[in-house]
Every structure is written in structure tokens, then in C-alpha cells.
């Protein structure tokens, strides 16, 4: 029994044949992702490159996709720090590319902008259950009157869910109502929203993106790729009945357009006497840094390398003008792999800086306030200092000679003692892109998925 797993990336379509009994990768191939009109061509090529003829037909065919712009979402909340943030966390946790987020009352200009953004799904939140209702109802009316064709997921105050859904449906909008992302203050509830987004992606977005041809001929496209990575991370951390998981972990995914950080950890304070403040944190959390893609944003990251003593050595011996040219050329040709020693070193430097900044933003931090009784320490965000493993995934960890060095950039920095990054985790490289494959298998074949990860993730010093 084996599974055919496909990952449509924006540049490459990757296919894997995985033995469901052992978790072994029987064959792997990739081909450039073909034009939006016919993604199946590239996939067909990648599949025919797979050497699995002896193994017969696959037992299951599953795919994830970040092609054709990925899953584009807009999140709308009431206040930016509460339902606004809850909606953002839900959208990102569902593997979406967050195009824009809004708070408070939508203006006509906001709606005009929304229409231009052409999101696949608009997430509408606001108010706790029984709380504020006039603004979210007003926002529902604004969306109803707009030219928007996106699926609207309503995850706000349940007291006015019926009224909001009614006005949206009356204007021909497709609306799905789920439980509130913030049913009461201090209770974050994003799972129902993540699940409905996954279903909408499977049933509607795949079709809208022209992936249904692929669906019919090759494999079911079941989730966006970032969600697959997150599902893989969750399974690896939590394990299953017969297999113990790895415990709290972080997965860093360094890409050409973004750097994503996924953490599976409660993140409660590990230091005594610390007060935890702010919106509760999702145990399974994803953040996306759109300014830290090591191709698209090469120039801005290079600036950061110049300014940080810790990373400046990656630029040693490189001419200033060469750096500028190289960074600009990387942004133009995103699929390009480094050719010379200098290019490889520069690439590793860019990736290390991206990992450093992205993990720093993802991790919680300690703030000190001075009162009459001395310092009071407040934690905002997740304490990740005792996370046991970090996994690096993405091209840089497969190709770079200094992959371990790049991943070490995620660790605690003594010059930023209040940032709660991992202090002493084990480091693993996902050089075979197994995280997304494991996430695809996680529901139906969790044991195969775990065996796949245990086989392919390579520990590094």
C-alpha cells in the first residue's frame, strides 16, 4: 500500500510516493508548475517521473496547493487586539495568505479595496457572544451590498449571526456561519473556523483556481500547503495512541516570498512570578512574515545583515556593489539556486537573518514594569524557551552546506534576553519536504505520517 502525495508550489510541483506500511519515501520527483490554465501538465510530468511502476496503483492520492496565489483571505474584526487578532490567527492557522485585515466599521473605501483584493474567503468576526452587535451587522450589510464574490465565513457574535447571514444571503452571497472565534474574552476558539476554511478550500476554491482538472485526473486537493505543514507539525508534536509525539516544537519554513513559523506549544510562562497578558494564544500557531522572503525581499534582508554584528560575517569578503546586484537579481529570478561559494554564503546569510527575525516576532516576550513593590514582569505571546525540537523546512535546508547554522539563528540570543526563544532544543532538517506530505496523511494515516517524519527528519548539531 502506498500513497501518492502532491504539493503544487508556485514554482515547482513536487510528488512523493510513500509506503503506508513503513513511512518510507519510495520515489520522489518534481517538475516546474505549469501555467494556471493547466496545472495538470506539470503534475503529469512529475508523476511520470516517479519510479513506482512496480508498486501498482496508490491506495490514496492527496494534494496540497499554494499555486495560483494560494488561499487569499481577508480578516475583519471589531477591535484590532481582540476579535481582529483572533480572526487573523484563525486565517493564518488555516494556511491562508492574509491579504489585508480590517477593524471597526468598514468604510466605503475599505469595501472598494476589498473588491479589488479578490480574496477567496472573507472572514467576518466581531463582538463576543452576546456582546457588540451593531458594528458587525453594519459590516455584514456593507459586504452584502458589495460586488464581492468571495465565500464569507461569519465567526462573530452568535446573537446576530442569523441576521447577518440573512442579509448576506438576500444579496446572493455565499455565507457560512461558524462558532465565534472569541466567544468570550479570554477564550480563543479558532478550530471551527479553520475547519470550515479547509472545507471551503476543498469544495470551492480548488474549483475557482482551476485545480479541479487535476482533482479529477490525479489527486484530491484537500488543503492549502501551509495548513498541511501545520497539520504535520501538530501530529509530530502530539503523536497518537500508539506512538508518542516529540512534544513542543517549532517548524520554520523559509521560502522565497515569505518566512513562516509554526509552533505547537501552550507557551505558558516558564518563569515564576510572570503575569501572562493579552489575547490567549493558539496552541497550534502560524505566523507569516511577508517581508522575509529570501528571494523577493533579498534587498531588505541584506540591509538587516549589514546592520547586525551577529550576521555580518555572512557578508565578509563581498563587495557592497556585488551584494546589491545579487539581492536585486535574486528578487527577479526567484527559482534560482546559488552557483558560487559567495552566492551560497550570501544565501545562507539571508536565510539566517530571516529565521532570526521571524522567530523573534513569533515568540513571546517579557516586559518589566516598575511599581511600588519592585519590578513586575509581564509576558505577552508564547514562552517557547523550553521547546524541545526545531525543524527547518524549505529549499535552503535541503541545499545549503550551512543548513544547521541557518536553523541555529532561531535560538535564544543573549542580547535579546526578554524574547522567549528556544534555549536548548534539538535541531532537525526536513531536506525532503516531508512536513507537508505528513500533514496530508495526518488524518487518514497518522501512523504512516509519523513514521515518514521519523525517517526523513535528520538531526543536526
Amino acid at each position, binding site marked *: 500500500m502506498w500513497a501518492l502525495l502532491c504539493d503544487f508550489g508556485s514554482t515547482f510541483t513536487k510528488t512523493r510516493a510513500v509506503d503506508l506500511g513503513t513511512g518510507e519515501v519510495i520515489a520522489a520527483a518534481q517538475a516546474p508548475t505549469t501555467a494556471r490554465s493547466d496545472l495538470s501538465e506539470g503534475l503529469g510530468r512529475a508523476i511520470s517521473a516517479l519510479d513506482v511502476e512496480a508498486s501498482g496503483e496508490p491506495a490514496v492520492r492527496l494534494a496540497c496547493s499554494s499555486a495560483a496565489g494560494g488561499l487569499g483571505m481577508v480578516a475583519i474584526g*471589531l*477591535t484590532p*487586539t*481582540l*476579535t481582529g487578532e483572533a480572526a487573523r490567527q484563525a486565517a493564518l492557522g488555516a494556511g491562508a495568505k492574509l491579504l489585508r485585515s480590517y477593524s471597526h466599521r468598514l468604510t466605503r473605501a475599505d469595501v472598494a479595496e476589498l473588491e479589488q483584493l479578490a480574496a477567496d474567503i472573507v472572514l467576518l468576526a*466581531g*463582538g*463576543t457572544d*452576546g*456582546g*457588540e*452587535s451593531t458594528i458587525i451587522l453594519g459590516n455584514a450589510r456593507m459586504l452584502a451590498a458589495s460586488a464581492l464574490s468571495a465565500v464569507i465565513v461569519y465567526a462573530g457574535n452568535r446573537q446576530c449571526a442569523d441576521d447577518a447571514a440573512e442579509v448576506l444571503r438576500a444579496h446572493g452571497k455565499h455565507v457560512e456561519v461558524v462558532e465565534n472565534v*472569541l466567544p*468570550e*474574552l479570554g477564550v480563543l476558539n479558532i478550530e471551527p473556523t479553520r475547519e470550515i476554511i479547509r472545507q471551503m478550500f476543498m469544495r470551492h476554491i480548488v474549483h475557482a483556481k482551476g485545480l479541479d482538472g487535476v482533482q479529477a485526473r490525479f489527486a484530491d486537493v484537500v488543503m492549502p500547503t501551509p495548513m498541511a505543514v501545520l497539520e504535520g507539525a501538530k501530529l509530530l508534536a502530539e503523536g497518537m495512541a500508539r506512538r508518542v509525539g516529540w512534544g513542543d516544537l517549532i517548524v520554520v519554513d523559509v521560502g522565497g516570498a515569505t518566512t513562516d513559523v509554526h509552533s505547537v506549544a501552550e507557551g505558558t510562562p516558564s518563569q515564576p512570578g510572570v*503575569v501572562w*497578558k493579552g489575547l490567549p494564544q493558539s496552541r497550534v500557531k502560524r505566523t507569516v512574515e511577508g517581508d522575509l522572503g529570501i528571494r523577493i525581499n533579498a534587498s531588505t534582508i541584506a540591509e538587516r545583515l549589514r546592520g547586525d554584528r551577529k550576521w555580518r560575517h555572512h557578508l565578509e569578503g563581498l563587495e557592497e556593489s556585488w551584494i546589491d546586484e545579487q539581492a536585486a537579481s535574486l528578487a527577479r529570478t526567484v527559482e534560482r539556486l546559488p552557483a558560487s561559494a559567495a552566492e551560497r554564503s550570501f544565501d545562507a546569510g539571508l536565510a539566517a537573518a530571516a529565521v532570526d527575525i521571524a522567530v523573534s516576532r513569533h515568540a513571546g516576550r517579557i516586559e518589566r*514594569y*516598575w*511599581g*511600588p*513593590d519592585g519590578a*513586575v514582569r*509581564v509576558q505577552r505571546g508564547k514562552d517557547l524557551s523550553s521547546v524541545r525540537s526545531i525543524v527547518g523546512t524549505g529549499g535552503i535546508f535541503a541545499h545549503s552546506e550551512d543548513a544547521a547554522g541557518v536553523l541555529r539563528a532561531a535560538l535564544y540570543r543573549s542580547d535579546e534576553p526578554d524574547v522567549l526563544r528556544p534555549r536548548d532544543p534539538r535541531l532537525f532538517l526536513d531536506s525532503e519536504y516531508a512536513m507537508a506530505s505528513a500533514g496530508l496523511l495526518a488524518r487518514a494515516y497518522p501512523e504512516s505520517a509519523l513514521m515518514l517524519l521519523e525517517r526523513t527528519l535528520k538531526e543536526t548539531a
Partner: protein
Amino acid sequence: MATSRPYTLILGVIGADVHVIGITILAHALREAGFNVVNLGIMVSQEEFIAAAIEVDADALLVSSLYGHGEIDAEGLRDHCREAGIGDILMYLGGNLVVGKHDFKEVESKFRDMGFDRVFPPGTLPDDVLAWLNSDLASRAARVEETP
């Protein structure tokens, strides 16, 4: 009560203050009395009070300050509420509001000027707060009904 749902109250200790006992007792008493109580706990910033009040559509803010920095911590709260669109919200303040011995009348008038509707001295019992809340919320509800 004039409305069909219970009144919603936001409770919290403002600033860098970590005195949790009083607010816990008050939250318990008000819940027992039938209010919908959202207790934000200790070390609550003005922004947190306001965002919480907006999301839950609160009827009143009950602000506690026990460590003597009440004046600095609560300054501008009424204006910030106005800016955030909830300028009319009922606001109470209680605790050890200033350092040292002062005539409470002076303290009270100082904080009333800052926009608090009621100011309570140390030693106030939950029943006193409850009585004022019932009366203030009822008169506000009556005022709303009179408005055409």
C-alpha cells in the same frame, strides 16, 4: 432590570498594580447578584479596558487601584473612551487611590473631575457598589427610554 439581558460589567485593576484580592471578591459578589461580569484581573491597561468594553458591549467599567498610582494610571480614561466611541459608559473607581492621608472628599472630587461617575474609598463593601450600580444603571435605562 429594564433590559432583557443582564448588564455587562468590566472589572480590572489598572496599571502595574497586582493586588488581586479585592477585585476577586467584588467580581464574585456582582456575579452572585446577577450581573454578567468580565474580570480582566490585574495589570490592566486603559487600552485593554476599552477594547474589552467594546467587544462585549459593556454597560460599566469598574476600575480598581490599590497601590497609590491611581491618578497617573486613570488619567485620560474618559477621553480615551470618548475617542473609542464609548464615551457615555458608566465608570466607577475604587481603592487606595492616592498615597498618604488625604481628605476623601478631595480625592473624590479630583477623580470625579477626571470623568469617573462614582469614586469609592478603601473599605467599601460590595453591597454599596451593588446599590449604586442598580440605581445608576436603572436611571440610565430610564433616560434611554425617554429619548424619542
